[in-house]
């Protein structure tokens, strides 16, 4: 894709990947949002859902005590690092005792059923070729607020698609590689190439182009999109229902794109690198780029709803680069062996370190009177708790951010009676202004004790 860029630009200070976000100002609201909101400007709320595969070594995760004064267990240690002056303990809620019972499969298949139910709290249809789930919490939120940003929501991951064959004991691969579901039959596939993501989000932003060039490009794009949309509609007239429905998916994409291009930002509300190289040498590099792009997407208000899968369900990734060689999935079937426990601890510790990097970048983004993390909820969990037992109760859950005041982080909260995970999502939905008492198969109302 062509852009005309001057050769030497000093847009970044201090080295690779450090972006400066301008303070959030009302004047910088995207045009669509400016139209929508009439009240005095408060920073908008964002939601990010972060998925880890194969469960967590709970013995090194669950804090021994409750409340604000708990000691950080081994796996959660990356939340505090005196050397780099990172202290995220006060920004995170550790929630224990939640259960996602609808995610229990019939027979084996916990990875597929747990992953497909990860954000839907729904018991899915067990089939290799058909799927039936329900809307996920991120899409529920996107339906409510998505119109205010160029992208209603974004789905990222480090592993793109599924391998062939069935992916888990008779479950379709769609169940193991997606956590976002727009409706019962529509999983939203992930983007995993950093270069593609950057181009997709910021292809319209070209500070080197003249206003005339930008206008011309926009006009051309709109005429192409309009033409294609017209063709799809005309073609649908000649087709039966199954085909029409199939083409509707394409038409939806074209109409969304049309809106996006029409409302395109040409003034920056955040500073972008002049050129972005999505190349990475190894897995750590890939994860770092994805973290960067998630933060950039939120800072630049390209979207306010993101899901991220750090690998797909049942991931066999080899973590030898941090001293835990072997297939993650096979190790997580630890069979109570101490050497497997040790490796899981290393892997999970590394995963939380990546999470901490994301949180710290959000915290470093000034916004309004505070920072981006203050206005965000970041949910982290896995599709099961223990990787061997494959249990769906006593799940590992972290909730970071203040969500504009709806959350009081900095505590370990232990719930009795195994309240449904769906209730946590009810609370989050309520905070986004969605009036509901139910969610998924077993939501009954908001979850108490998230705010004090």
């Amino acid at each position, binding site marked *: *894709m*062509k852009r005309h860029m001057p*050769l*030497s630009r*000093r847009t*970044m200070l201090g080295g690779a990947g450090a972006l400066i976000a301008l303070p959030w100002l009302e004047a910088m609201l995207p045009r669509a949002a400016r139209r929508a909101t009439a009240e005095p400007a408060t920073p908008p709320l964002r939601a990010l859902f972060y998925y880890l595969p194969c469960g967590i070594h709970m013995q090194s995760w669950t804090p021994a005590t409750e409340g604000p004064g708990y000691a950080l267990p081994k796996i959660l240690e990356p939340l505090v690092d005196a050397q780099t002056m990172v202290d995220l303990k006060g920004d995170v809620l550790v929630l224990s005792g939640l259960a996602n019972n609808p995610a229990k499969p*019939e*027979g*084996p298949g916990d990875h597929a059923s747990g992953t497909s139910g990860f954000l839907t709290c729904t018991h899915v*249809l*067990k*089939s*290799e*070729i058909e799927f*039936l789930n329900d809307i996920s919490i991120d899409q529920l939120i996107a339906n409510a607020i998505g119109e205010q940003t160029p992208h209603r929501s974004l789905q990222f991951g480090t592993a*793109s*698609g*599924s*391998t*062939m*064959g069935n992916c888990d*004991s*008779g479950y*379709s*691969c769609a169940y193991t*590689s997606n956590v976002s579901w727009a409706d019962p039959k*529509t999983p*939203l*596939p992930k*983007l995993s190439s950093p270069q*593609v993501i950057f*181009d*997709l989000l910021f292809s319209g932003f070209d500070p080197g182009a003249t206003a005339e060039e930008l206008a011309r490009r926009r006009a*051309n794009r709109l005429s*192409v*999109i309009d033409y*294609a949309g017209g*063709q799809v509609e005309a*073609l649908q007239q*000649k*087709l*039966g229902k*199954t*085909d029409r429905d*199939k083409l509707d*998916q*394409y038409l*939806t*994409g074209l109409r*969304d*794109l049309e809106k*996006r291009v029409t409302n395109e930002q040409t003034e920056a509300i955040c500073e972008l690198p002049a050129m972005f*190289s*999505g*190349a*990475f040498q190894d897995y750590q590099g890939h994860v770092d780029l994805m973290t960067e792009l998630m933060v950039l997407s939120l800072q630049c208000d390209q979207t306010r709803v993101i899901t991220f899968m750090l690998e797909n369900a049942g991931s*066999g990734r080899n973590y030898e680069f941090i001293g835990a*060689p*072997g297939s993650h999935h*096979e190790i997580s079937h630890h069979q109570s062996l101490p050497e497997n426990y040790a490796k899981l601890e290393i892997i999970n510790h590394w995963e939380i370190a990546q999470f901490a990097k994301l949180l710290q970048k959000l915290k470093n983004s000034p916004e309004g009177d505070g920072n981006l993390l203050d206005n965000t909820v970041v949910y982290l969990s896995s599709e099961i708790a223990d990787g061997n037992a494959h249990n769906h109760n006593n799940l590992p859950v972290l909730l970071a951010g203040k969500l504009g005041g709806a959350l009081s982080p900095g505590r370990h909260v232990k719930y009795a009676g195994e309240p449904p995970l769906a209730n946590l999502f009810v609370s989050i939905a309520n905070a986004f202004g969605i009036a509901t008492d139910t969610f998924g198969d077993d939501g009954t109302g908001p979850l108490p004790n998230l705010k004090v």
Partner: protein
Amino acid sequence: MASSLDLGKSPRRPDRAPEWALLVAVAVGGCNGDSAPQDAASDTQAATTAPGTATDELPTTSAGEGEDESGSDSGEPAEDPGRVTVHRLNRTEYNNTVRDLLGTQQRPADSFPADDFGLGFDNIADVLSTSPLQAELYELAAEGLISEAMAVPITEATLWKFEAEEALASVGAAAGDAWNLYSNGEVYATTEIPYTGKYLFRARVWAQQAGPDLAHMNLTVDQAPVFMVDTDAVVNGAKIYEVEVDLKAGVHKFAVEFTNDYYDEPNMADRNLLVDWFSVEGPQDLVQGENEQRTRIMICDPLVDGEASCGRAILEAFVHRAWRRPPTDAEVDELFAFITAAQAAGQDFEAGLRVALQAALVSPYFVFRVELDPTPTDLTPHPLTDHELASRLSYFLWSSMPDAELLAAADQGQLQDPEQLKAQTERMLEDPRAAALIDNFAGQWWLIRNVEVAFKDVLLYPQWNDEMKASMREELRLFAESFLAGDRSMLEMLTSTRTFVDQRLAAHYGLAGDFGPDFVEVDFGAAPFQGILNKAGLMTVLSHADHTSPVKRGKWVLENLLCQVPPPPPPGVDTKLDPVVGKTQRETLEAHREDPKCIGCHVVMDPLGFGLEHYDPLGAWRDLENGLPIDPSGTLPNGSYFADGLAMQTLISGEPDFSKCVARKTFIYALGRGTGLADIDYLDEIVAGFEAGEYRFADLVLNLVTSDVFRQRRGDPSQ
């Protein structure tokens, strides 16, 4: 037990339905302890898809229709060639299509979201969905493709020069006209390279030397080193280093990296690398004055032939190929309007033409394979148009668009004649593009694509590495090629003792002889390997990291060689049966037979895997399993006994179910839909022709493409 089934010649006798229905009955009947598969053969009518029941039959119509297709008990079954849902090009097909349409080396679909797949393949029309972001990805891809295709040929190379003190860096500080890398790190720039080609990457550097070693410098492109040197350059003795690199069009990061920072404390000498500038220049290999892609599109010169007439001609020719059919005049008009609109807005013909070409690539007629019915809901079968047929044929055999010859045959209406259709098919099977069948058909049916991602315990199997994977894949590919491109009987897929090995695999299989890095054809002779089931790659994929999996292997045989699909385990069952020390896998898995909930299916599935227990998790032969003797004997689902894995394969190769299954897999892949009861008669005829042709793959293909089920379709009754 159902005896070996008689493949009668009369295609329409209703009582033939049970044979094929056996193929679904296992799924429907379930595997309760007391109803083993043969009893379920009577449940033929219930073969519709129900929640929780895994069949491999994708409904050919929408749900609820299935019942009506089972003419098996209502007298004369209606001819119903079915329909294929509007078929989005998958990633492989998209990349191949733009390659053949434009001549590009770009592979835009590599960054598209992964294709959904079902029935074992990633080209099943009903299963392929279109993500909302796909539209934007298509649009951006079209922009990039046309930009490259229409680029006016350049006549001289471009120089991008970066002054290091103005560029970005991970460490260091400006030092006059240079950048001082005083610690390990890099100075870099990212820029867009507009043309694929060879480029010269240069850097002018010097070092402050210290200690015993010279300063080490890497030149890297996209994080990968392309040039490494211990530089002896010093202040006032700067050196220019240069390396030629191959770059694809796109954004790239160029860096000069310093890697061995050193401080000589006693002497207070500091080693540093200073970079004055670095540059990229190219393309070096300019083809003066020619962009082949542009020449292909610009079939006339607007200045000579007039813009209106030439513009229309260019668009008609381009769209004819891109949409795989001639456009109507109205469609050409609509595209030409982009040119007039551009000119009205003060741009030129060229600019408008480019937008029109992009639009053609975002059109649903490019991105989807469209087939029309006279009335969308009418179930009366009708022939496909020549162009629809040509697309079906080329995407089946080449995973790509029709070529000029096939398109011309379609234009002339020749493809309605079965003899012409056959002639084209034969031509296409011999074309190098038919290698797509190896990569995409065999690649998925035989799990060749899965070899790459198989995980093994490298402490147990230190020979498991990228080279081993590559060798295993190559053997499978060459083996596939010998059938798909050759004259062999497909039955030999299970019996052949001929295979292809390099040095690595020869050692792996224990073959005596002199082998080198190249692949040669060998005969196993007396060595205990034959057919696809003893291919190291397949055995590797169908195993765990450190032990074999008779269940995975048995299931694969059942599903992929006999086309029988066992349903998933019943609810509430704990299916983890980890290997037990002191017992063989077979003995451990006997637990399946003790539990009535498990026995129904496992009594069918497990023996097929036990037959292969002599092949370890990497497919090498083992006499014993952890010191314990192996019993590879068992029975096929129909009760026939085999003494070991070789006998098992030979036995299966003679089963009618096997040849039917080969035909069925080919059908599913070729059409991009599953099979239903309505397809039974067509499949019977195809298999009869396959058999008469001595099971050559080419004959199977010819019978398939000339069958009405491939050449006709009907409408969609769903509301």
